[in-house]
């Protein structure tokens, strides 16, 4: 570093003053070992990235290989692009795989609607309304985030089978319409609290009721939180397996993950190729959500995770 600061011996009282004027203290080592260190660091990180992604890329590449090659070839470069696995896999089960994707998509859409509407409504109440027992209900909501689903799934199954809802999408969608994904209530409460209260106070003075404040002020200003909710809902619902496995028993109602799993039961180990191909197909929507929604995903985890 070229700059040399002449400074007095720091004492506790001068420290805070110093912190403002002194540039970050990093000028002890000479630049060369620093560069070598950082090169080493990058090399290590890149090696780790390759290791982390290797199985995924290998899955993708293998989905284009004939099955017998999958068990002989570790390389990430396919010798030829062969779509047979995809056409075989698509039609290997009782229904074409598109049907299962469609079923997954229906459940995702219902869950999106539920989480966006019902959770944001509840979040508005917790963030902005004064009512008796607010703290208590808020605590109940927080605890429900941590409640294991297993303690309610058995009676839920009994309830839904009494209602004749087994083998329909209702057990998977209706709870979402009733804001049972409390994690998103929490996420939106966090976001709403950051919106200046002056805005809704001004709106109130202009005669807006809570309905209009929620619709016209809070929601439009909360698009990032809504986007985060939408992307997480999409990915988690698409990946969900436990409840879909329990509530969807007839093959025509299977979702993509449940159908994938029957691949393993019905076809045995002989058809890894087609199974890999359909695995890739079922991962593509999640991957796209990741690709286009990264910013919101990262922000979402960070803001609900810290402070």
């Amino acid at each position, binding site marked *: 570093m070229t700059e040399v600061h002449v400074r007095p011996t720091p004492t506790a009282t001068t420290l805070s003053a110093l912190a403002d004027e002194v540039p970050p203290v990093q000028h002890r080592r000479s630049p060369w070992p620093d560069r070598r260190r950082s090169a080493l660091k990058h090399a290590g*990180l890149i090696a780790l990235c390759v290791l982390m992604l290797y199985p995924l890329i290998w899955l993708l590449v293998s989905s284009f290989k004939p099955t017998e090659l999958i068990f002989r070839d*570790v390389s990430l470069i396919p010798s030829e692009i062969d779509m047979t696995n995809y056409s075989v896999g698509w039609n290997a089960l009782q229904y074409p795989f598109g049907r299962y994707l469609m079923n997954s998509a229906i459940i995702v859409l219902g869950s999106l609607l539920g989480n966006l509407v019902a959770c944001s409504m509840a979040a508005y109440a917790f963030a902005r309304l004064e009512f008796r027992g607010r703290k*208590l209900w808020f605590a109940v909501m927080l605890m429900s985030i941590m409640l294991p689903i297993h303690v309610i799934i*058995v009676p839920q199954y009994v309830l839904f089978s009494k209602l004749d809802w087994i083998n329909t999408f209702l057990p998977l969608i209706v709870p979402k319409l009733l804001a049972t994904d409390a994690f998103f209530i929490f996420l939106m409460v966090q976001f709403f609290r950051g919106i200046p209260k002056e805005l809704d106070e001004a709106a109130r003075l202009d005669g807006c009721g809570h309905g209009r404040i929620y619709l016209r002020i809070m929601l439009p200003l909360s698009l990032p939180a809504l986007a985060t909710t939408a992307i997480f809902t999409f990915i988690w619902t698409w990946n969900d397996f436990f409840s879909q496995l329990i509530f969807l028993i007839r093959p025509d109602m299977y979702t993509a993950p449940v159908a994938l*799993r029957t691949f393993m039961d019905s076809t045995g180990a002989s058809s890894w190729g087609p199974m890999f191909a359909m695995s890739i197909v079922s991962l593509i929507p999640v991957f796209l959500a990741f690709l286009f929604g990264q910013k919101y995903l990262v922000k979402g985890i960070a803001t609900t995770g810290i402070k």
Partner: protein
Amino acid sequence: MSVVTELRRTARSARGEKGTPSRRSLRNGDGKAAALFLLPWFLGLGLITIGPMVASGYLSFTDYDLLQPPTWIGLENYTRLFEDPRLANSLRVTFTYVFTAVPLQLAAALGLALMLDRGLKGLPFYRSVLYLPSLLGGSVAVAILWRQVFGIDGLVNQFLALFGIQGKGWVSDPETALWTLVLLHIWTFGAPMIIFLAGLRQIPEMYYEAAAIDGAGAVRRFRSITLPLLTPIIFFNLVLQVIGAFQSFTQAFVVSGGTGGPADSTMFYTLYLYQKGFTAFDMGYASAMAWLLVLIVAAMTLINFFASKFWVFYDD
């Protein structure tokens, strides 16, 4: 506020504020509007969460197979819990999993977050790549992949063969099957890593500057600044990961082909619960199992909260 700190704060303020009538209760509240806005949530809480919880409490004292009406058998399901060797085994498997997978995953997350912190070039790229597995890790597709990768003629053994090492069927050997699942969990360290990264960013730069001026080395700065200020976030991750890990299901289910095998070595508690409830339709026993799970998870969380007094540093 994270869920955990928020809970802590709520509990504390509930204790402290008792007796003093708040300004709120004197003012005209928004009770009616709140009731409307919370209507879906209240319905869900009653019908989907608390109602079934009560029902499951009741069912745990009955013999119920879904076809015949439940018959009251008192504590029999609970006494069966203690005599069931497969249940004891599933607890052992689950605890082993939780106590290895969670700390290892968090250590990886923290280590990588520290490496990526403070203006490393290419941070967004590394962050994305390392985060991707945690989005895909819970899927059936990745579990299927795992089953192949650690199979007898899977990817791992093909690599080992390049070095002339004869591998074994990692998922079909009771000695190693569970560890492939632990590895899968560690592989998804990206999500807690992002929380750590965000936490590191919250530590004011001036602390480090001051310490550097005082002559503190890198190790000392880590031990005296970074680590203490990060403990609330480590705690948050720990609590949530422990709760989550006790409920792991998909990976064990798919990797073991739904059996929890070989030799019950991947029989997670939830997998056993699923088999009892939804394969054998022993709903009463499954309900008792579910309540035992709630007790265990609650106890682990309480222990965590209690132990946090000794190692978590709160700035406020």
